[in-house]
């Protein structure tokens, strides 16, 4: 990789020169794009394979042909019409995810704002604790305790029993992202609002929030990905087939024959990952801006 890197280092001067039309593209630029495209394909091909499997006819799926002879697009409707328990699992995932994303975002906005702009005794301690949780395997060490709490509260095999611990999964990271975003807003703006007699609450709602929209998008996507696909807690805290979330069902059934034939599992899989990819595609502009504005700086 060193030789490749050095040859790429050589292209820096080339890429900074303003592009001239109709100029021959240097070989190293071609190599550079080829390598990037290789990595892009590495990302895309596995996903395209699932997509392809989801539209294979059952026969082609079991003969081991990569490209199907007969396409069959009915697997998606089959899942919707013939597998009520899967629909239930899907609904569970939606409920759990929406609740987690909303509550975590609200909590993180409140805390991030206070940490970035308000006088707060003990803010340094809070910051240290937040950072510390990123280095400590909290999920692993807390899971036995969480199970016992939920058992005492009668929350095993319930959706609130999942939502409550889910909110803490990304809480520290979310607060830190939001703090980073709010820190980009100049303190003078906050002071000016205070001089004008705005309460800290009004300052947050009317001045800060509109400026933090990109950060909220980042938070939404990060928490969506965590909650939508969380496995370990859901696997531990739910046992009932109808309370389980979609990822647990997918992870615990390998697929095979009958209802769970591979193309149908593939169709479920596409249904499970599509919401995230679509949301990301539509929100990518704000997401990228949010990342640049400070979501990656903590």
């Amino acid at each position: 990789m060193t030789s490749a890197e050095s040859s790429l280092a050589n292209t820096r001067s080339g890429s900074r020169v303003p592009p001239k039309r109709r100029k021959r593209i240097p070989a190293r630029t071609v190599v550079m794009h080829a390598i990037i495209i290789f990595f892009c394909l590495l990302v895309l091909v596995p996903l395209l394979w699932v997509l392809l499997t989801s539209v294979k006819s059952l026969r082609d799926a079991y003969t081991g042909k990569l490209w199907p002879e007969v396409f069959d697009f009915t697997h998606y409707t089959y899942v919707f019409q013939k597998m009520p328990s899967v629909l239930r699992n899907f609904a569970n995932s939606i409920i759990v995810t929406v609740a987690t994303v909303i509550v975590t975002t609200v909590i993180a906005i409140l805390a991030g704002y206070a940490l970035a702009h308000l006088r707060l005794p003990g803010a340094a301690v809070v910051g240290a604790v937040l950072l510390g949780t990123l280095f400590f395997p909290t999920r692993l060490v807390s899971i036995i305790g969480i199970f016992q709490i939920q058992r005492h509260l009668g929350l095993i095999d319930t959706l609130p029993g999942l939502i409550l611990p889910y909110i803490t999964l990304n809480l520290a990271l979310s607060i830190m992202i939001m703090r980073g975003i709010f820190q980009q807003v100049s303190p003078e703006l906050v002071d000016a609002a205070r001089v004008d007699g705005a309460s800290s609450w009004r300052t947050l709602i009317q001045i800060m929030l509109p400026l933090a929209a990109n950060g909220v998008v980042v938070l939404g996507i990060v928490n969506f990905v965590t909650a939508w696909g969380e496995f370990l807690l859901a696997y531990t805290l739910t046992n009932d087939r109808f309370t389980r979330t979609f990822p647990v069902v997918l992870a615990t059934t390998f697929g095979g024959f009958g209802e769970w034939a591979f193309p149908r599992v593939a169709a479920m899989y596409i249904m499970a990952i599509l919401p995230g990819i679509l949301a990301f595609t539509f929100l990518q502009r704000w997401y990228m801006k949010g990342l640049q504005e400070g979501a990656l700086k903590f």
Partner: protein
Amino acid sequence: MARTRGWGNWIYLLPAALFFFMYMAYPILRSMWMSFTNYQYLSTEPAQFVGLQNFANALNDPLFHLGLLRAATFTAIFLPGVIFIPLFVAILVDRVGNQRLATVYRLILLIPAVIPAAMIFVLWRWLYDFEIGPINTILRDYLHLFNSFNAPQWVGVSPLALPAVAFVEIWWGLGYHTMFFLAGLASIPRELFEAARVDGASEWQMFWHVTLPRLQPIMLILVILRFGSAMAVIDDFIIMGGFNRALPTYTWTVYMWHMAFQLGTWPQGYASAVGWLGAGAMLIVVAIMMYVFRNRD
């Protein structure tokens, strides 16, 4: 509101604090307390305080040692890949002159980052499958490198299991970590390169003396963070492996979960001790790394 002291502003942190104590601090402390007892979830007998007995047992438990070793092996394979490959990709993408193309590259690379973890492992368990997985299908039926007897066993009881899972984690984190490095690269003032070029530095020297030192803080943070997440990996191992002790993916984390929620009478006291010992071992390494890295700055 108490403007002068600011205690009133804690109202903004109250919801966060509530969740933090209820579902993070308290369960962690509870698990610590349990690790000093012989608590068994399915046993009707009341738990007794046993002092350090669980810790002593765990330190003499060959399965715990093996589990730590397996996790460390996984980390050793995973860590260089998740730092250097994204760094390499970031340096390439940073040089793409066409802005639209650069955006497309970033978007494609970031797709795995918006696919939830469990989905990633389900996907790759499938890709790696010995019989019906497309990887072996290609190796066997299209390239004819193997037949159905000697085809590689990617996951399961196989020496390939840990590298295979590490590859999945690297694949998953590729775009996300590339973004970290791109943010770092973007923050390097261009004048530094101009100045170096005026001084006659070669491009390689500029990478070595300008780019790399500037990226070092990001790299060190990522090394520490990813070390922690790699040692504590569990979802991948459960989904792609399972609970067979002979599996290379049966690490200390899987062992802990297995004991706490499936084995025998669910000895959660002992499982907590295993969890705390593993976490403690990790934290010691993290502390050493922080100390070493701090000196280097």
